[in-house]
């Protein structure tokens, strides 16, 4: 199980080598090297997993060295191997390997080709550190690392002003969440005297419900920033300015799920904070619904997928809030498969249409891009929750637990599921069917299928999206993920007693709703590419949430900053600095006069000093 060290080491080595020699290796060697590093990490993750088979009960901790200690705080660099972290590293490195492979083709010819893989490898390293860290500060290092990589990669094409400002936005919004992470860490240390996850075991914590609620809500603030929940989700839409593989890896499959992971990791505390859990569940389901509505009216293919991601993250938070941690992780993994697939499929389309992202200028691509089309349809059926695709089982598990907690949460979730099947159907019909509308962007050339480095990841991910449900079938004896994660969540995991008939009924409802969504999208969008009645402006503009933030915070903030610049900085601060510098120069000049070089004047000054000391002594001496 010490192989977990290699899981962390490989991407780090890849990063260092690419950082040093990347420019010289160039296109495509740098890309292959980066892919190889992440693949090595994936293989190590498999080794860790195999080593754990059979002794799942006890977490294994690889302690490397003491990082720092201050007072009672001892932080070491140590990695935790338990069911949760193994599940995370397996799917993170697996999906990352495929996306690295895809990027070799997608980024071909980019002037900063090697730099892209430098960031990507650093990202995988940070992500692996985040999910395997055994202490909160180390996890925070990974948390900030993925945030920084996300910033660099969103603004990768920084010569576009929109990309630069999108990167900034992601960075700033995530800072708001990070405040919660730090304050939460402080609170954990104050009440538990330790920041190690080893201390957080279910049932053994002596936290008052109020403290637990405060801790959970602070960490949820962090999670809401990273995992794009209401009200902090707006950055994820702008993040689509980055290259599409980045959107797939960071802003769909892995980084944005870090918030969900963090909440699952803190499940022992969540189990003590029922009010906070309810808040999380409501925020989650509200995010899912709001984002799904917005997704129905977008015209930019990546915006549709981005809203869809926000919506799915809302489902995961619903799972967390209702205590269904296994279901949330299950959804996270299957979502990683089909959402990465949808992004890469979109990227394949964008790639073949010379960078066009507007679905109005696509259509009828089925004929030209058969592999992309088929895999996208499979992804659609998965995310819609059509049985027996993976989304049916994972989303079904979340909804079942939501029903156990409150039928209201369940109802909102089911409506969102209907919307999900509908908006993805709209995407598929408008892009791949109907009439061709891409002449403008292709200038007469026919679109072409992408090269095999790009289609192979599509096929692998499609297979995973289709059969991913096998990970955790709702049949006794086949709930692999459930039994794998059971030792991690233990008693924190909620258990809702339900009759077999009710469970079957809920599953049937899910299936019917999914098929209904598919049917509705076919009725509405089969052969149609534009329908203003179904594309309301309020949803197109994402409920005007972003516009509201811009008015309320961004503009007032800019105004304050301008005052600070012209008045406070230039006049007060600069004035003080210039004044101090002037005094310093004056004294310094005097020092040169004192330093005459004459021994007699040196002696005089020394004796002067002595006389002052003796004079002082005379005043304090007891007489």
């Amino acid at each position, binding site marked *: 199980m010490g192989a977990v060290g290699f899981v962390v080491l490989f991407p780090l080595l890849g990063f260092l080598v690419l950082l040093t020699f990347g420019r010289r290796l160039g296109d495509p060697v740098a890309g292959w090297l980066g892919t190889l590093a992440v693949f090595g990490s994936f293989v190590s993750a498999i080794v860790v997993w195999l080593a754990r088979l059979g002794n799942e009960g006890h977490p294994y901790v690889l302690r490397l060295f003491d990082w720092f200690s201050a007072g009672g705080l001892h932080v070491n660099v140590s990695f935790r191997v338990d069911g949760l972290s193994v599940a995370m590293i397996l799917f993170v490195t697996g999906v990352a390997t495929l996306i690295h492979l895809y990027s070799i083709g997608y980024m071909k010819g980019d002037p900063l080709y090697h730099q892209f893989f430098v960031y990507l490898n650093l990202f995988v390293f940070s992500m692996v550190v985040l999910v395997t860290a055994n202490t909160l500060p180390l996890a925070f290092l990974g948390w900030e690392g993925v945030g920084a990589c996300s910033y660099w990669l969103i603004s990768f094409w920084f010569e576009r002003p929109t990309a630069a400002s999108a990167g900034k936005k992601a960075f700033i919004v995530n800072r708001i969440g990070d405040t919660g992470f730090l304050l939460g860490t402080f609170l954990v240390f104050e009440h538990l005297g330790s920041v190690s996850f080893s201390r957080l075991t279910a049932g053994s914590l002596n936290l008052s419900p109020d403290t637990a609620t405060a801790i959970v809500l602070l960490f949820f603030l962090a999670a809401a920033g990273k995992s794009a929940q209401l009200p902090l989700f707006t950055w994820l839409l702008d993040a689509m300015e980055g290259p599409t593989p980045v959107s797939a890896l960071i802003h769909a499959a892995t980084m944005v799920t870090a918030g969900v992971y963090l909440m699952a990791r803190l499940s022992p505390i969540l189990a003590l904070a029922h009010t906070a859990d309810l808040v999380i569940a409501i925020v989650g389901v509200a995010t899912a619904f709001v984002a799904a509505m917005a997704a129905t009216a977008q015209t930019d293919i990546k915006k549709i997928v981005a809203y869809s991601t926000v919506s799915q993250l809302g489902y995961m938070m619903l799972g967390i809030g209702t205590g269904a941690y296994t279901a949330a992780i299950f959804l996270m993994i299957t979502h990683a498969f089909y959402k990465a697939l949808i992004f890469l499929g979109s990227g394949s389309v964008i790639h073949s249409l010379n960078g066009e992202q507007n679905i109005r200028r696509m259509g009828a691509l089925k004929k030209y891009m058969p592999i992309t089309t088929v895999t996208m349809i499979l992804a659609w059926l998965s995310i819609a929750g059509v049985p027996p695709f993976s989304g049916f089982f994972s989303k079904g598990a979340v909804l079942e637990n939501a029903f156990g907690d409150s039928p209201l949460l369940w109802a909102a979730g089911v409506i969102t599921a209907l919307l999900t099947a509908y908006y993805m159907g709209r995407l598929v019909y408008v892009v791949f069917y109907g009439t061709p509308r891409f002449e403008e962007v292709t200038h007469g050339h026919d679109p072409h299928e992408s090269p095999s480095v790009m289609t192979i990841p599509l096929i692998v991910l499609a297979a995973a999206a289709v059969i991913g449900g096998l990970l955790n079938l709702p049949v006794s004896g086949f709930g692999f993920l459930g039994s794998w994660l059971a030792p991690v969540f233990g008693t924190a995991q909620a258990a809702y007693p339900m009759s077999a008939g009710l469970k079957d009924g809920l599953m049937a409802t899910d299936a019917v709703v999914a098929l209904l969504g598919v049917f509705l999208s076919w009725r509405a969008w089969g052969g149609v590419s534009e329908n203003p009645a179904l594309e309301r402006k309020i949803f197109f503009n994402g409920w005007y949430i972003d516009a509201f933030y811009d008015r309320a915070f961004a503009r007032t903030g800019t105004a304050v900053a301008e005052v600070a610049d012209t008045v406070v900085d230039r006049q007060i601060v600069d004035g003080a600095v210039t004044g101090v510098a002037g005094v*310093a120069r004056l004294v310094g000049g005097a020092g040169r006069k004192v330093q005459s070089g004459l021994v007699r004047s040196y002696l005089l000054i020394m004796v002067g*000093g002595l006389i002052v*000391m003796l004079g002082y002594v005379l005043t304090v001496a007891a007489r």
Partner: protein
Amino acid sequence: MIFANVLSQLPIALPAISYKAVAPELVLFGGALLILLVSATVGKRELPGLYRAIALVAALAEGGFSGYQLYLAQGAKASLAVAGAIAYDGFSAFAGIVVAAILLLAILIGPGFIKRIAGDGPEFLVLMLISAMGATVMAQGEDLIVIFIGLEILSIALYVMVGYRIGDGLAREAAFKYFILGGFSSAIFLYGIALVYGATGTTNLAKIGAFLALNVLTHDGVLLFGLALLLLGFGFKVSAVPFHLWSPDVYQGAPTSVTGYMAAMAKVGAFAALIRVFDIAFAGQIVQWRPIVVGLAILSMVFGALFALRQRELKKILAYSSINHAGFILLGVYAGTAAAISNTLFYLIAYAVIVVGTFGLVSIVQDSIGVSEGSCSLDQLRGLARSRPALATVTAIMVLAQAGAPFTTGFLAKFSIIVSVVEIREYWVAVVAMLSAAIAVAFYLRIVLAMFRGEPEEVEGERVLAIQGAATEAPARRQALAWIGVSLSLVFTVGFGIFPQPLLDLAARAHIVG
């Protein structure tokens, strides 16, 4: 044995000598004698490699014994030896390790450059070992007289080393100035010892402590007068304002590698003794002496930083920088708690390694750009980053370490001293210290900027080439060992800057006996 038997027959009562307590002094002195003996037996030939090897072995052995003592002399094992005149404790052992570190670096860096001035003779290394012995005696001295002897052993060797560039008028002047002013301060120090003896009836620190604990002086004027005079002696040695005036002249006049050596060694010896005398023996008088020490500290920090701003001569800038450092270390003495003492030791070892390394780099710079060891102005550094990028980068790192840049021991040293001051709730002192450090950054950055900005001047460039051509391959060889020393100090400074825990733990073990 026979010798001991003969001695025991004499009518003089000799104290029992604990050889393991004085082992560090013995190996240093033994090394010095051995070098002299070898050079006397080989006639006219000189064996610089052998001398250097012996000196290195002596330095390493001294460090080894000190390290051994640091583990051995813990808790109840710490004791007084040789009739109570010598302390055998973790504190002196740690100081011994610092001395060994300075020696090791200085032996690697120095002789190559001294050879240019004075040839291959053994005297330089002998003086170095003897002055180091003086510093260890000061660190172990449990009696004011012993401390005074250590001070003199250290100082007299240093006077000679400062005057090594005998052909240069500036150097002669510097050595002579240092000697006169040093003699003056030694005399006052001795008078201070006399007054303390007059007040307490003893010069032994343990007995002074015991006496002052048991008796309340109704008239403590004599004692306090004595303390003030002692402070002048120590203040001179560590170059605290206003007793610092010798240091810019002497730092410039001395051979550069000697400057680095004495800046480190004199401070280690003097501060070790200062802590033992004031923080332990006169701990009861802390209310009376604290204002004086904090006054010296603040003057040193503030004026050290301010005076350096207008200097253009590199070695004088570094002289003021070391005055600024002295002020910081004095704050550790001023705080006086156990934690503050261990932080002071950390500062001492961090400072000693940085300063020897920095002056080693200055030697290499002077050698490379072809100026004499007496001068190197900021203008002459221009364009160094272009012509010698590695040298400029390493110099920049060491200079920034002196400024207290994070990820170096320099940062932790300053930080922990300020923490100690905050812990005794003297916030304004901490604020002054931080401000002085901020001002100091300005002149450290000037050095870095000078190297990294601009091209070497045209005429200058030709001159450099001409000199380098003339000196053939000699500079490379004399710089090779110096580079090893400099690299060691760089690794130490950055390594322990990132992973400071082992060093902090070591400093925390250094308790003072009694």
